[in-house]
């Protein structure tokens, strides 16, 4: 394994680990704020219990997300000093803003978690809202920095040096809007469905307590609308990729030849040496239609870029298909959920619906991971698209394999512990059905 590959693997591993906690940190506060609001409105202690349990879960995940985020801020330099030397002045701005947003989130999470009895009810709700807003903002800022890597802007390249740096223009790059919308929706959809799925599963196992019913409803109200909007946002993002990163789009769709009336390929085995995709099901014209709203439009294939600038086509293609497949399922279930909620159906008696939700528990996270695989692997061999190759950004320090192994151990360890702790918090949920005392803080 080369040092470059080890460094890429390590960065990918760190991001894949962190994104789970980042996503939960964005969306979970919304759930707990909604639950708390219901408690204030109805005084039904089940909502207070929910808000507190969700807050405790958020605290565990936030703690892990905070440390894995700290790791990433160092790793940007420890692994990619060449990238940071070049990009720091240009995209440091969103990172600085993210620092502030994260800071605000940490402060108000402290108030929220430990302040149930120390601050007034209004101040407490305000703290919750601040956690939710700053959580969403910190996600937005990080995605802006990533969007810049896909659509670099805000500087002029003279002899390999960035001059005339314009950080605001860098933030307002062409990929910012599509990526920010797509990722923010992903966070709400993934978390909403994961929480709903866990409670649906518990209800299927016979626990139809009010606790689970309310939890399921709140989680769906956050997750389902996001899941329904996500295909539109994805379509918008793909349109951007088609115009600005033809190699990435071609890899996503496993399209080797530039074609008018290009098909989409379902499944299949992209063979980079033979330059064709075997065993795929082609649906003609659909890709041209999706990418350019014109069934006859010409879509650039991989043959329009030199072989040395191809990403790993099979991985990008399969990741993309996985993401789209999972997203479609979630959107359909989301429509079903909204329809049932609107008809005011008793969700706990709809076993088939509960099963459909329970199956979807991990789907949002898998789709998010797959989506990041598409955008990151699809950009290779570039770290800054068209400007800097990943190979030129990597640290000169040898022995990266060792570091990669070390961090792999750390992450596996953390993942196991988090899972155990969360299952204690969530799965051992109350068995009560009606009357019960308000839970201790």
């Amino acid at each position, binding site marked *: 394994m080369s040092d470059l590959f080890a460094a890429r693997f390590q960065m990918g591993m760190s991001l894949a680990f962190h994104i789970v906690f980042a996503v939960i940190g964005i969306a979970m506060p919304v759930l707990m704020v909604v639950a708390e609001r219901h408690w204030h409105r109805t005084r039904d202690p089940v909502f207070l219990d929910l808000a507190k349990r969700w807050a*405790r879960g958020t*605290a*565990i995940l*936030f*703690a*892990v997300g*905070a*440390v894995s985020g*700290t*790791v990433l*801020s*160092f*790793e*940007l*330099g*420890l692994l990619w*000093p*060449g990238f*940071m*030397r*070049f990009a*720091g*002045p*240009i995209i*440091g*701005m969103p*990172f*600085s*803003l*993210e*620092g*502030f947003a994260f*800071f*605000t989130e*940490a402060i*108000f*999470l*402290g*108030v929220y*978690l*430990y*302040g149930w*009895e*120390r*601050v007034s009810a209004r101040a407490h709700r305000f703290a919750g809202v601040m956690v939710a807003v700053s959580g969403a903002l910190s996600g937005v800022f990080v995605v802006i920095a990533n969007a810049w890597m896909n659509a670099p802007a805000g500087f002029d390249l003279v002899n390999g040096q960035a001059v005339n*740096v*314009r*950080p*605001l223009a860098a933030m307002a790059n062409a990929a910012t809007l599509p990526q920010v919308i797509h990722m923010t929706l992903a966070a709400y959809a993934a978390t909403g469905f994961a929480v709903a799925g866990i409670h649906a599963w518990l209800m299927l196992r016979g626990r139809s307590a009010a606790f689970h019913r309310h939890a399921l409803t709140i989680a769906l109200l956050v997750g389902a609308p996001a899941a329904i909007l996500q295909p539109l946002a994805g379509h918008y993002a793909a349109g951007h990729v088609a115009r600005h990163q033809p190699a990435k789009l071609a890899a996503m769709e496993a399209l080797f030849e530039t074609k008018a009336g290009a098909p989409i390929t379902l499944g299949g085995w992209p063979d980079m040496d033979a330059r064709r995709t075997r065993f795929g099901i082609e649906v003609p014209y659909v890709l041209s239609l999706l990418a350019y709203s014109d069934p006859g439009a010409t879509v650039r294939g991989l043959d329009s870029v030199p072989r040395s600038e191809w990403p790993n086509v099979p991985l990008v293609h399969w990741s993309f298909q996985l993401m789209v497949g999972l997203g479609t399922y979630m959107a359909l279930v989301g429509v079903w959920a909204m329809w049932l909620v609107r008809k005011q159906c008793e969700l706990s008696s709809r076993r088939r619906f509960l099963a459909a939700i329970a199956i979807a528990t991990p789907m949002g996270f898998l789709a998010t991971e797959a989506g990041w695989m598409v955008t990151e692997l699809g950009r290779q061999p570039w770290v800054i698209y068209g400007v800097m190759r990943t190979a030129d950004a990597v*640290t*000169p*320090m*040898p022995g990266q394999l060792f*570091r990669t192994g*070390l961090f792999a151990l*750390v992450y596996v360890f*953390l993942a196991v*512990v988090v899972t155990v*702790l969360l299952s204690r918090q969530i799965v051992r949920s109350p068995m009560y059905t009606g009357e019960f005392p308000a839970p201790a*803080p």
Partner: protein
Amino acid sequence: MTAAIIAGILVTALNAYVLLGGADFGGGVWDLLARGPRKAAQRDLVAHAIGPVWEANHVWLILAIVLLFTCFPPAFARLAVTLNLPLTGVLVGIVLRGSAFAFRGYGGDRDVVQRRWGRVFAIASLVTPMLLGMAVGAIATGNLGEGGSGKGEGFYGDYVATWLTPFAGAVGLFTLACFALLAAVYLTLEAKDESLREDFRARALGAGLAVFVTAGLALWLAGQGAPLMREGLMRSRWALPFQIATGLAAVVALTALWWRRYAVARVAAAAQISLILWGWAASQFPYVVPPDLTIAVAAAPGATLRLVTIALAAGAVVLIPSLAYLFRVFKGSDQPSGSAISRR
């Protein structure tokens, strides 16, 4: 000029990290060294004091890192390459420490669980400041030239020899002693119980002595290890008043502890540690990373610096009231007794 101001803000962020996050590390040290009849009470006090604020305390480090890579990118890249190993160690320490603290808080009350996480938390609290201090020591030596590609002395020469020196080791120990001092002094004020307060008074006095000894050791080793810094600390015009102020703060802190004037001791100890940090920064001014990266050489383009300054000002408007609120709620004088963590 803007670059120098931002460098000042960066040191301020580090200062906040040392005073707040540093004390959290110090708390871990006292967790590890908890003994005597009030062993459990000491650990509870540490956990109770750190609980609500530690996440916020540790964001200061992220702020400093972000400012460094945005405003002084060559310096960040240089440190990331040459100090890769100790910084990796710091990262592992931060990960284990942060998660161990949360897991201990939420992992249930079984003794064995508490002990196991407590041990991870405490050991990570010991190793991380040590490595941070060694990294600072390595910067002060002025040995961090073009790493990797520069001297071509092989892996050990390029990536290990620069920070694995007696001087850097002494700075590491010194950092640990400073953090332990801060934590012990703060905890005298957090303790509600008189005997517990006495425990931490004794610990603070011990840590004060350790700070003194390790500082002497580091200064003595600086003769060979970091002549640049020693030169700066000894010969500059500002050096004498600075040294006097630091020494004065140290004496006031220890005297106040001796006479049980804890509020005075807290201010004096914080002032002492802050002055030490600023002394280090001033001794290597105008270098961000000696021997070649000065503030002017390493600075990002003016447009970036100006925007970051604006962002810092805007951020401060949100942050400072929020932080003040956080500390007023949890560190004010009217706290109800009992630990939020132990009740969970």
